[in-house]
């Protein structure tokens, strides 16, 4: 059982690893490793869902055939594109050389947290409310029946897309009994990804470790390795998508730009209700106009749409939802504008302050300090700041609608706190970017 489970998960990772090489050729081993998991699990579950919709059951045979096929396809495309069978890999060891005392402490804490997350998730079965009621329940029925009808007939199905449920299903059909470990892998892989991306800013290693530590202890992130909710994968896809959009536009790198489109698309495959993908899609379009890359937005929107549309179409067939994403955005925006009355704004603002600003206070203070510093040094790097401000605005608008239409909204403040748990991590990335920028500014001043 363990061997099959390990092989099954490794095949997912190898597919993602090879695929990541197609997007970012010159990335090191660690970056490909983290991306390998995000891309692998996301694309595999997405295609498994499409195949099931076409009549292929969820079982070991279909899963293995799909993942082997995907690996073969990724190798073939790598060969065609780069002239080599496998992606370019650079296994750097400079991360591991000559640690100072603060670095040793920082790395020690990071490793302790990663190992602890893994221990906890291997030990504890799926046990938290939403994961039992929804995500894992669907997964068990998929694994038992091979199809989605049984789970659909039980109700409470269409509220959330299937990424995490199908990841659980994959573990079950491989003979595993506890899929919780997936969330720890998400956490560990993301810490690696964050480390690598901050390192690209040429910051001292101590700063990179300190900033990664901030992400590791950011509120909700660690505890969600045990919860088996979709919030952690969702947050990771949104943050990674934003980071690669930043690199793509900053370095005029089409590979990283399109990688962002895939990651943002996969965020909607983890959770469908939140509109935070909008900030990345709009930014990806508008900034391309500034840098005169006229065709890039078409590719971005095309890739993104190819991931968001199928689930929405499936939903519209069985549950009467809409696939008209643009129309939904327009109607939601007009609903928000119509609700801009003081009587609704005041309680929404209080609710937002109590459950978002107070909880993440230190991060919002940091955001304020960073913005002031950027204005002071006349920064030209505003992309991440804009994304964060846009996301905060959308979170507030979402809360406005929630408070207006859902009577028990005030009773579930935790949902709001979970929904925006990616923002503190985005602020950590912004902090890294502004430290790098400020250092450059000081050097120039001298």
């Amino acid at each position, binding site marked *: 059982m363990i061997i099959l489970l390990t092989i099954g998960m490794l095949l997912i990772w190898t597919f993602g690893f090879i695929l990541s090489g197609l997007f970012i050729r010159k990335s090191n081993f660690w970056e490909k490793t983290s991306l390998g998991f995000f891309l692998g699990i996301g694309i595999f579950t997405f295609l498994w869902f499409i195949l099931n919709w076409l009549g292929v059951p969820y079982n070991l045979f279909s899963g293995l055939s799909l993942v082997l096929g995907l690996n073969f396809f990724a190798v073939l495309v790598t060969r065609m594109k780069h002239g080599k069978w496998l992606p370019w890999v650079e296994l750097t060891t400079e991360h591991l050389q000559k640690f100072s005392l603060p670095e040793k402490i920082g790395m020690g804490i990071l490793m302790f947290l990663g190992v602890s997350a893994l221990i906890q998730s291997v030990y504890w079965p799926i046990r938290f409310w939403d994961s039992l009621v929804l995500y894992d329940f669907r997964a068990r029925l998929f694994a038992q029946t091979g199809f989605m009808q049984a789970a659909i007939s039980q109700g409470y199905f269409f509220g959330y897309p299937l990424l995490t449920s199908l990841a659980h299903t994959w573990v079950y059909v491989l003979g595993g009994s506890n899929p919780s470990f997936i969330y720890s892998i998400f956490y560990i892989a993301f810490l690696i990804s964050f480390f690598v991306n901050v390192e690209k800013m040429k910051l001292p290693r101590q700063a990179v470790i*300190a900033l990664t530590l901030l992400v590791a202890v950011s509120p909700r992130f660690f505890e969600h390795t045990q919860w088996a909710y979709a919030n952690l994968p969702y947050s990771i896809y949104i943050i990674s998508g934003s980071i690669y959009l930043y690199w793509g536009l900053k370095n005029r790198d089409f590979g990283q730009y399109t990688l962002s489109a895939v990651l943002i698309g996969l965020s909607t495959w983890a959770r469908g209700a939140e509109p935070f993908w909008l900030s990345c899609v709009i930014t990806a379009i508008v900034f391309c106009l500034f840098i005169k890359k006229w065709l890039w937005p078409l590719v971005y929107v095309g890739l993104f749409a190819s991931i968001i549309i199928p689930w929405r179409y499936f939903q519209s067939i069985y549950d009467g939802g809409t696939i008209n994403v643009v129309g939904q955005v327009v109607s939601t925006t007009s609903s928000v504008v119509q609700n801009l009355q003081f009587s609704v704004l005041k309680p929404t603002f209080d609710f937002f302050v109590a459950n978002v600003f107070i909880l993440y206070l230190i991060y919002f203070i940091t955001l304020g300090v960073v913005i002031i510093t950027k204005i002071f040094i006349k920064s030209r790097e505003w992309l991440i700041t804009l994304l964060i401000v846009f996301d905060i605005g959308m979170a507030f608008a979402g809360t406005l609608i929630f408070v207006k239409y859902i009577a028990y909204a005030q009773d579930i403040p935790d949902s709001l706190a979970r929904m925006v748990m990616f923002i503190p991590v985005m602020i950590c990335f912004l902090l890294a970017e502004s430290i790098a920028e400020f250092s450059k500014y000081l050097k120039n001043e001298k």
Partner: protein
Amino acid sequence: MKRHIFQKITQINKFGFPVLVAAAYLSLLVDSYKYIGFLSKHTLVDPRYLLVLSLVSAIFLVTKRANALGLLVFKINAFLILPIATVGYLTMRLLEAFHFNNYVFSTYHVQPVGFFYIVVFSFALAATYKLIGSPNLNKTMLLLLIPVFFIDNLTKVLDSAISSNLYVMAHINYSYADKMSASWGIYYDYTQFIKANTPEGSSILVPPQGYPWFLTGNIGVDRYFLYPRKLVNGDERQPGTNLNNVDYILIDYGETNISQHGFTNIWPKFDVDGEYLIYWNPLDGSTERVDNGKYIYKAENKEQWGIIRVKHDI
């Protein structure tokens, strides 16, 4: 002018540092004895601010060559407070792992998470002391300020990881049922009793949704443990559905004593013609079967758990 102000701050910091450290330790101790937030509520001084201020002061002191008093504080911290605080904290968390959550606070009136702030503070001071004389000290210290400002998150997450790991060590042999029972309490055991006494595919009437049946009355949760049984919510004082379509009815005291929508403990609050009844004792899991049993609701608040096999009209 700038240089003069800087020298003044350095001078003040040399004497302020021991005072700040003492104040931070004292306030953290008071908070861990009462509750986190006690001092900030009554004096508007949050011990965590003192902690951060002390660490900033320590970092500043180390970069400027510490005086004898400062060095003494560092030494007392590293060789006395740090070992005692670490051993004390781990002992508390071990006690909780082997007894129950909140055992230390309910027995000794000390909050382990509050006490962990002392450990983290002490550790951070010791690490700062260790850096005296290392190269590139100013740059290192500046970067150390980043995690210092996030020490609250760091402390909470580390405490959560340590206490959870100790729990796992103390209960390494737990089975799936033990773990679920530890997480869901009586509710999980009750669902296992229901599962053992009803065939798959049977239909079961459960209490209405709301406290005191916030779990057993929630079909969404029940189905995870009882699928493929069909579950239907009844009303509090009547079945709310044709009993000919129901195979079993729960006898459900309720998981809490909290009331919602006017509901009170014990369900069903109506009589049921039963083929048989099985009572379940949540303390030891024992069962008692009563054949040809009719369930008669008595308006007394007696804790009862079990299941009724409904007698159908022929």
